[in-house]
C-alpha cells in the first residue's frame, strides 16, 4: 500500500462516512474524524515527499498505477498517480493548509446543527480528495477527473447554505463558468490524444516537440482556457467574487489557497507544450497582467471585506499567471506557495471578524476593532503586509521575483511589468484601506463594537500558525543576489530541467536593488495615504446611493462584466431557445406532424361529406367514371 494511496483515499473515505453517518455521530466526532484524516494525510504526504527527496535529483518521480480506467485496443489509460517535486509541493500545501482550515472551521461552523456540520466536513474532505487527485494525476484523464471533481465540491460548498437562493445561484454560476473552462481543457485533451495516441504525461510531455507549432499553440491556448476557468482569469473570473456566498473557511481553502491555483499548476505541469508556442505564452502573460491590474482596481472600491480579498485573490492569481506566462515557472509557483499562506490567513481573519460581529462584513460599519480583537488584528496585519509586498515579507520576495522576470525574463515585456507594478500599487492601497478601516480609527457602529470579542483558540491557533508560516515561507525563495541557498528553486529544478537555463544573471544587482527600493517606496506612500484617508473620523467611504465619480461607478460595478454576461449569455441564449422552442419545435417540426394528421382528417371529412352524400345517382356517376378510368387505362397501357 503506497503511502500516496492513503494520502489520496483517506479523505475520500472520511468524506463518504461523514456524509452518510456524520449526523448521527454528533458534531465532535464528525469534526474530529475530518480533521484527523487530513492531518494523517499531511503526515503521509510529508513522509512520501521526504522519500521523494531522498531520490537522486534526475529521477525524482514516483509513479503509482491504481487500476485500468479505459483499455481500447490501441489505447490504454489507467488511474495513475505521479509524485514529483511539483506535485509533492502541492500535496503538502493542500493537506497542510487544509488541516489548519479544518481546525478553524471546527470553531467557525459551531452554530450549525449536527447534520449540516457533518455535511460541511464531508464536502471539505471530498474537496481535499479532489484537489489531491488533480495534483497527483499522472495523465490528462485523471487530471480532468480531479478538475471536474474540484468544480463539483466548490459548487457544493459555495451553495452550502441551501436555503439561500443567492448561495445556490453563486454555486451554479461557479460550476457553469468552470465548465466553460473545462470545455477548452477537454478539447485540448482530445487534440493531445489525436496527436500522441496516449494521454500519459510521461508519453506526451517529453515528446511535446512532436507537435507542430500551430497545434502547440492551439493546445496551449485551450489548456490555458481550462486554466483561466479554474483560476478565475480574464473573462472567466466572474464566479470567484460571488463564491464568497460560501462559509469563510471554504473561501479560504478553495477560493484562496488551493483550487484557484490549479490553473497555474496545469500551465506549470504542461510547460513543455507552452514553451513550444510563444504566442500561447504571450496570451497567458498578458491575460495574467491585465487580470492582476483590473482586479486590483476593483478591489479598491469594494466595501465587503471578503469581496475585497476575493478580488485581491483574482489579482494575485493574475501575478502567478503573469509569472508563468513570462516563462518564470518557479517564480510563479513560489508566489502560489506564499499566496496560499497569507491569503488563507487573510480570509480566516476576515472570518474571525465576521464571526465576532455576527455576520457583519461591511467595513463602513467597523473601526477601532484592534482593541477588541488584538490577535486577529495582528495576524491580519501580517497577512496584509505580505499581500501588499512590505519588504522582507514573503509576498514581497515572490511578487518582486515575478515583476523582475516580467522585466528581464525569457519572454519579458515592459508593458507587462508596468501593469504588474500598477497592480502592486493598488494592492498596497486596498490592503491598507481595509486594515485601517476595520481595525483603526473610530468605531463607526458602537452597538456592534460593544459586542465584538476575540475568537476562541481553535480559530486563533490557525491564524497564528498561518501568520508564522506566511513570514517563514518567504525565506525559501530569497532573491539570488542575497543568498545562493535557493531551496525552492532547487526543489523544482528537476521538473523544469528541460527548460533553457533562466538567464538569472541578465538582471544586474543595481537594477534589482533599484526596483526593490521603488516597490518599498510605493508601499510606504500608498500605505500612508490609506492611513490618512481611513483612520480619520469621517472615513472616506461614500455612503450607498451617494453620487460618485464615473470611475468609481465603473469599478463599483466590476466593469459591468456580470451585466454583460447576463445579457449576452443568459437572456440572449434563453430568448433564442424560447424562439426555437416555439417556432421550430412547436411550429415547424410538430406543425408538420400535426399538419399531416389534420390533412388526413380533412380529407376524410371531405370524402364523407361531399362524396358520400347518399344520393344514388351520384354513386352511379362515380361508378361510370370508374369504368371510364378502367377503359382509359386499358387503352393507354395497351400493348
Amino acid at each position, binding site marked *: 500500500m503506497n503511502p500516496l494511496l492513503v494520502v489520496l483515499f483517506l479523505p475520500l473515505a472520511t468524506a463518504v462516512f461523514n456524509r452518510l453517518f456524520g449526523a448521527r455521530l454528533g458534531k465532535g466526532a464528525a469534526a474530529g474524524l475530518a480533521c484527523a484524516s487530513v492531518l494523517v494525510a499531511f503526515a503521509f504526504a510529508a513522509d512520501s515527499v521526504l522519500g521523494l527527496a531522498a531520490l537522486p535529483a534526475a529521477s525524482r518521480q514516483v509513479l503509482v498505477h491504481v487500476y485500468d480506467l479505459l483499455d481500447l485496443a490501441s489505447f490504454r489509460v489507467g488511474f495513475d498517480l505521479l509524485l514529483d517535486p511539483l506535485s509533492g509541493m502541492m500535496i503538502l500545501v493542500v493537506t497542510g493548509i487544509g488541516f489548519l482550515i479544518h481546525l478553524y472551521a471546527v470553531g467557525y461552523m459551531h452554530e450549525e446543527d449536527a447534520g449540516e456540520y457533518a455535511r460541511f466536513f464531508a464536502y471539505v474532505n471530498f474537496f481535499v480528495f479532489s484537489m489531491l487527485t488533480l495534483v497527483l494525476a499522472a495523465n490528462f484523464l485523471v487530471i480532468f477527473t480531479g478538475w471536474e471533481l474540484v468544480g463539483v465540491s466548490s459548487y457544493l460548498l459555495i451553495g452550502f447554505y441551501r436555503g439561500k437562493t443567492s448561495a445556490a445561484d453563486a454555486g451554479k454560476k461557479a460550476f457553469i463558468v468552470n465548465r466553460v473552462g473545462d470545455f477548452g481543457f477537454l478539447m485540448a485533451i482530445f487534440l493531445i490524444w489525436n496527436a500522441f495516441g496516449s494521454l500519459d504525461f510521461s508519453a506526451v510531455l517529453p515528446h511535446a516537440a512532436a507537435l507542430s507549432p500551430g497545434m502547440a499553440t492551439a493546445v496551449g491556448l485551450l489548456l490555458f482556457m481550462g486554466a483561466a476557468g479554474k483560476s478565475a482569469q480574464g473573462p472567466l473570473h466572474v464566479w470567484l467574487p460571488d463564491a464568497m456566498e460560501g462559509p469563510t473557511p471554504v473561501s479560504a481553502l478553495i477560493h484562496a489557497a488551493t483550487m484557484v491555483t490549479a490553473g497555474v499548476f496545469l500551465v506549470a505541469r504542461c510547460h513543455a507544450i507552452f514553451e513550444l508556442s510563444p504566442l500561447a505564452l504571450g496570451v497567458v502573460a498578458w491575460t495574467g497582467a491585465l487580470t492582476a491590474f483590473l482586479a486590483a482596481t476593483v478591489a479598491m472600491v469594494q466595501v465587503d471585506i471578503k469581496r475585497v480579498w476575493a478580488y485581491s485573490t483574482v489579482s494575485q492569481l493574475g501575478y502567478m499567471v503573469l509569472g508563468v506566462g513570462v516563462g518564470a515557472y518557479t517564480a510563479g509557483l513560489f508566489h502560489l506557495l506564499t499566496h496560499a499562506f497569507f491569503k488563507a490567513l487573510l480570509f480566516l481573519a476576515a472570518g474571525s471578524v465576521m464571526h465576532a460581529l455576527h455576520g457583519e462584513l461591511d467595513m463602513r460599519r467597523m473601526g477601532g476593532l484592534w482593541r477588541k480583537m488584538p490577535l486577529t488584528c495582528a495576524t491580519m496585519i501580517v497577512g496584509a503586509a505580505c499581500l501588499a509586498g512590505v519588504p522582507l515579507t514573503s509576498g514581497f520576495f515572490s511578487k518582486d521575483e515575478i515583476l523582475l522576470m516580467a522585466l528581464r525574463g525569457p519572454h519579458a515585456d515592459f508593458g507587462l511589468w508596468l501593469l504588474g507594478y500598477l497592480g502592486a500599487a493598488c494592492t498596497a492601497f486596498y490592503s491598507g484601506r481595509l486594515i485601517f478601516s476595520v481595525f483603526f480609527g473610530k468605531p463607526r457602529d458602537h452597538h456592534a463594537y460593544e459586542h465584538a470579542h476575540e475568537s476562541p483558540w481553535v480559530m486563533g491557533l490557525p491564524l497564528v500558525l498561518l501568520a508564522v508560516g506566511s513570514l517563514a515561507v518567504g525565506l525559501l525563495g530569497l532573491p539570488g543576489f542575497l543568498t545562493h541557498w535557493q531551496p525552492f528553486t532547487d526543489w523544482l529544478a528537476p521538473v523544469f530541467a528541460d527548460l533553457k537555463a533562466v538567464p538569472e544573471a541578465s538582471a544586474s544587482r543595481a537594477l534589482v536593488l533599484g526596483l526593490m527600493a521603488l516597490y518599498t517606496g510605493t508601499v510606504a506612500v500608498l500605505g500612508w495615504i490609506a492611513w490618512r484617508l481611513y483612520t480619520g473620523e469621517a472615513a472616506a467611504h461614500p455612503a450607498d446611493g451617494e453620487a460618485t465619480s464615473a470611475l468609481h461607478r465603473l469599478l463599483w460595478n466590476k466593469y459591468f462584466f456580470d451585466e454583460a454576461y447576463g445579457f449576452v449569455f443568459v437572456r440572449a441564449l434563453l430568448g433564442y431557445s424560447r424562439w426555437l422552442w416555439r417556432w421550430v419545435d412547436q411550429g415547424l417540426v410538430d406543425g408538420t406532424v400535426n399538419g399531416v*394528421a389534420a390533412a*388526413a*382528417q380533412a*380529407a*376524410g*371529412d371531405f*370524402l*364523407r361529406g361531399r*362524396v*358520400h352524400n*347518399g344520393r*344514388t345517382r*351520384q*354513386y*352511379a356517376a*362515380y*361508378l361510370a*367514371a*370508374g*369504368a371510364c*378510368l*378502367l*377503359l382509359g*387505362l*386499358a*387503352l*393507354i*397501357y*395497351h*400493348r
Partner: protein
Amino acid sequence: MIPAYGLRDLAVLGPEIACILGAALVLGLDMAFRSQSSKRLVEAAAALALGVSAALALGRLAAGPGSAFGGQVLDGAVPDVFRLGLAATGLLTLVLARREGGSQGLLHAEFYALLLFALGAMELITVSQDLMLSFVALETFSLAMYVLAGFNKAWHGNREAALKYFLLGAFAAAFFVLGMALVFGALGSVRLDAASALLSGGKLAAPREMLLDLGLSLCATALLFKVGAAPFHLWTPDVYAGSTTPVAYFLSAGAKLAGFGALLKLLGAVPGCPAPFPQILAVLAVATLLAGNLGALRQTNLKRLLAYSSVAHTGYVLVGLLGLGTAGSGAAASVLAYTLVYAVMAFVAFGLVAAAEGGLKRPLLLEDLQGMGFERPYFSLALAVAMVSMAGLPPTAGFIVKLGVFKAALDGGHTLAAVVAILNSVVSAAVYLRVLVALYMLPKSPDGAQGGARLSGTLGFAVVALALALLALGLLPGSLLALGSL
C-alpha cells in the same frame, strides 16, 4: 353429338349443389312445419347444408384440380379453399343471424334460403371458367343480396339500402353484359380458357386483342363493384349501415371472397395477366386504400366504420393482386389468405357490434363503447384483438397476411405502389386505435349505451374462439402460410 356430362362433372360442383339443395330443403321444411319450433329446425337444416358443402369442398381440395362440363368449370387448390371459406362464412353468418334473429324477426326460412342460394352462386363463380356462367352466378347472389340487404322490419334505413344496392348493382351488371359481348366478339366464345389458349399462342390479331382487353375491363368493373374497390365502393357504407349486422357481415366477407375468386379467375385466366391490368390495379389499390382508410378516420357510427374498413381491406387484397403477373410471387395465395383472415376478423368485429347494439334503437356509436374496456374484459379483449389484427400489427394474423400481400406486390415489381399502400396502413392503424382509445382510455360517456354488450351463447363463444385464432395464427402462422404453397 351431345357431350356426355356424367356424375363426375356433378361431383366437381358438389359444394354448390349442396347449397342449392339445402335452400330447397329449407323452403320445404318451412312450408311443412308452420309452427315456431320450425325456425330452429330450418336453421339446423341450413347449417347441415353448409356443413356438407364445406365437407365436399374439402373433398375437392384433397382430390386435386379437375374440370367439368367441358371446361366450363375448373377447380383447383385456390378455388376449393375459396369455396371452403365461403361455406365457413355462411356458417358464421348463421351464428350471427341466430343472435339477431330474436330481436329483428330474421328467423324467416326465406332468409336462410336466400343465404344458401347466394352461397351456392358464390361458390359457382369461383370455379366458373365461362363468363356467361359467371354472369348468371353473379346475378343470382346479387339478387339474393339486394333482398337480404332490405330484409327485415320496416326500419326506414333498411329499405333505402336495398334500393341503392339494387340500382347500382344492376347498373354494374349492365357493364358486365357489354363486356361479355366484346369478349365474345374478340374470341368467338366467352370461355376464359379459350382466351388463354388463343392469347398464349399469340394468334389473336391486335384489334381483337384490344377488344378483349376492353371486354375484360368492363367485366372487371362489375366484379370490382361487388368487391367494393375504389371508385365503385360508394355503396358500401350506406348499404352496410342500412342492413342488419349479419347481412352486413355476409356482404363484406362473402362478396369479397366471391368477388376476388372471380377476379382471380378473370385475370389469372389470361396468361401474363393482360397488359393493362397491373397498372390499373395499382391505381385502384391505392385509391381504394385511401378511400377506405380516410373515410373511416373520423367515423363515429361503428357499422359505417367497419364498412370503410372493409373497403380498405379490399384495397390491401388488390395490392396482393399486383403480383399476379410474376410466377412464384404467390399472389393468388396471398389474396386467398387475406380474404379468409378478413372474413374471420370481420366476423369478430361484426359479431361484437351485433352484441353491443342489442338493445339500441339507433345505430351503435363509438361513444357507446367508451369505458367498456375493464367492465366487459372479454368483450373488449376480443374487439381489441380484432382491431389490432385489422390494423395489421404483428402479434396477429392480420400482420402475417398483410406481409404476404406486400411480398407479392414487391415480387411483382410494384415498389412505388407498395410504398404508398404500406403508408396507408398507418392511417388504418389510426382508425383502429380510435376504437381501442374509446374502449380502454375514455370514461363511460353519459349518453352512451348503458352496457348492453352481453357476450353470450354461441355468438360469444364463436367470437372469443376466433379472436384467439387470430392471435394463434399471428404467432404460429404455419397453417396460414401453408396456403402459400398453393
